[in-house]
């Protein structure tokens, strides 16, 4: 079976910035993939390359075995872009109808509006919408070509928690029909809740990827930070430890079982002091995933 997205060796430079620096992606049809990473990590540029909105300096992208342009021509790809605009002088219904009229086999406009949860806004001008409503209208625009692959670049950034939940529930309806979804986000919780697989970006590279279960396990862990005078000690061997980072004499240990790790730490290194235990964030999950791969 053809991969929904198959990227190999993608590179893209903007002036002095190497925005994408050798990215490989292989996303199977029906997968829901979260792309996580800080701002400027290359997420949006990669989305643009997959959509064919920009051309890679090196490497190649195939969408269902086709070039991005072919896939777009056939209406197999829909996208909610970060700056995807709406028209000021048209109603929500007209905007979706305009996009629908350009596709060969669109779904009915009313259905796209309903699926995106904006049927009641059809006659509203886009200037009179809240940020979250606009984002759902963009979702309707992306849906109307009835795509097999949907790319969403930070789809929920302008939404309040209630709208966010409604958005993801309409998304779930979409993915239940076997469609492929790739979404970029800052929110680890969103990835945990909705994705099958997670891809981490940093500095234009994919630094880790893995099934969501693994991430969930890591995200449920804790970070133990302590000054351990024997800098460089083998803390990785402590029970529960999933990775260690040193900042001078201070060690940061990501742990699945902080109680066990901490007891063992104090037993073996009685001089350890200034101990802090915190929940893990995105950074620690990144770190734990990468350090595991190195081992």
């Amino acid at each position: 079976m053809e991969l929904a997205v198959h990227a190999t060796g993608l590179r893209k430079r903007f002036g002095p910035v190497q925005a994408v620096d050798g990215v490989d992606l292989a996303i199977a049809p029906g997968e829901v993939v979260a792309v996580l990473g800080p701002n400027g990590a290359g997420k949006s540029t990669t989305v643009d390359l997959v959509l064919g909105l920009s051309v890679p300096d090196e490497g190649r992208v195939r969408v269902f075995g086709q070039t991005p342009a072919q896939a777009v021509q056939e209406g197999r790809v829909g996208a909610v872009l970060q700056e995807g605009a709406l028209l000021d002088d048209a109603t929500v219904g007209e905007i979706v109808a305009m996009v629908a009229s350009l596709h060969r086999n669109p779904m009915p406009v009313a259905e796209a509006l309903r699926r995106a949860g904006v049927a009641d806004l059809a006659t509203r001008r886009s200037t009179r919408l809240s940020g979250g409503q606009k984002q759902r209208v963009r979702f309707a625009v992306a849906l109307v070509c009835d795509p097999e692959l949907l790319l969403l670049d930070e789809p929920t950034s302008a939404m309040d928690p209630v709208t966010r939940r409604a958005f993801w529930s309409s998304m779930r309806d979409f993915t239940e029909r076997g469609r492929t979804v790739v979404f970029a986000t800052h929110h680890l919780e969103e990835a945990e809740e909705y994705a099958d697989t997670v891809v981490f970006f940093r500095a234009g590279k994919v630094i880790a990827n893995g099934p969501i279960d693994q991430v969930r396990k890591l995200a449920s862990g804790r970070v133990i930070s302590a000054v351990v005078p024997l800098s460089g000690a083998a803390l990785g061997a402590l029970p529960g430890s999933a990775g260690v980072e040193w900042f001078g004499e201070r060690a940061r240990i990501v742990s699945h079982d902080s109680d066990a790790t901490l007891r063992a730490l104090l037993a073996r290194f009685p001089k350890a002091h200034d101990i802090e235990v915190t929940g893990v964030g995105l950074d620690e999950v990144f770190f734990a995933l990468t350090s595991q791969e190195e081992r």
Partner: protein
Amino acid sequence: MRYLVLELRRALRRPGTLLFVVGFPGAFYLLESVIFGNGIDILPAMAAWGVLLAGLLVAPPIVAERAAGWQRQLRLTPLSGAGYLRGKATVGLLVALPPPIVVALLAHFTQDVRLDASQWVALVGLTWLGALPFALLGILIGQLSTPESVQQVTIVGMLALAIFGGMFMPLDTLPNWFGQVGYAMPSYWLTELGRWVVLPDREIMLAGGILLGWALALGAAVTWRFRRDS
């Protein structure tokens, strides 16, 4: 097709579109008819001015859509960039149809201008066909301007082309140097199309040829700019 209908509806809804293309030429026509004491001399110029305005009004939405990212959204549809520009030109041409009709109706009903049916059709039809280079000019302005500058560029273009093209004052009533500038303006030749219908001794082939030349040159500029953008 449905796409064009929606584009046209947006253009007509935009505040200013109808005011500019129908209201301004209509009002100036009535005003100048009184000043000149007859309704026929100024008729081709005001019909042409409305067409010119309709063409240049193609520019602002292109700039706005470029700035807001709507063009990126359209690139995720089968519509090509060239198709997008063709759509904008078509809408410009459609919006250019009402002005000569309205000015002609005003001439007939308020100024007692009497022409044969074939002359009315020729006046409206030829002036309307002359919209092509102006719609292309509107596209070019749309490609080159920023959201901050497009308003000024469009308005200055509307007035400069009208004034130097002799639309408000016939060129032969003005100093010689003014006339020399005027003959270089496409707006002068657009007016000539209508003057050929209603006034004696005018050169239609020359006017048509020059406008066609302008259309080709502007079309080439638009294509060049489009290739550089994409």
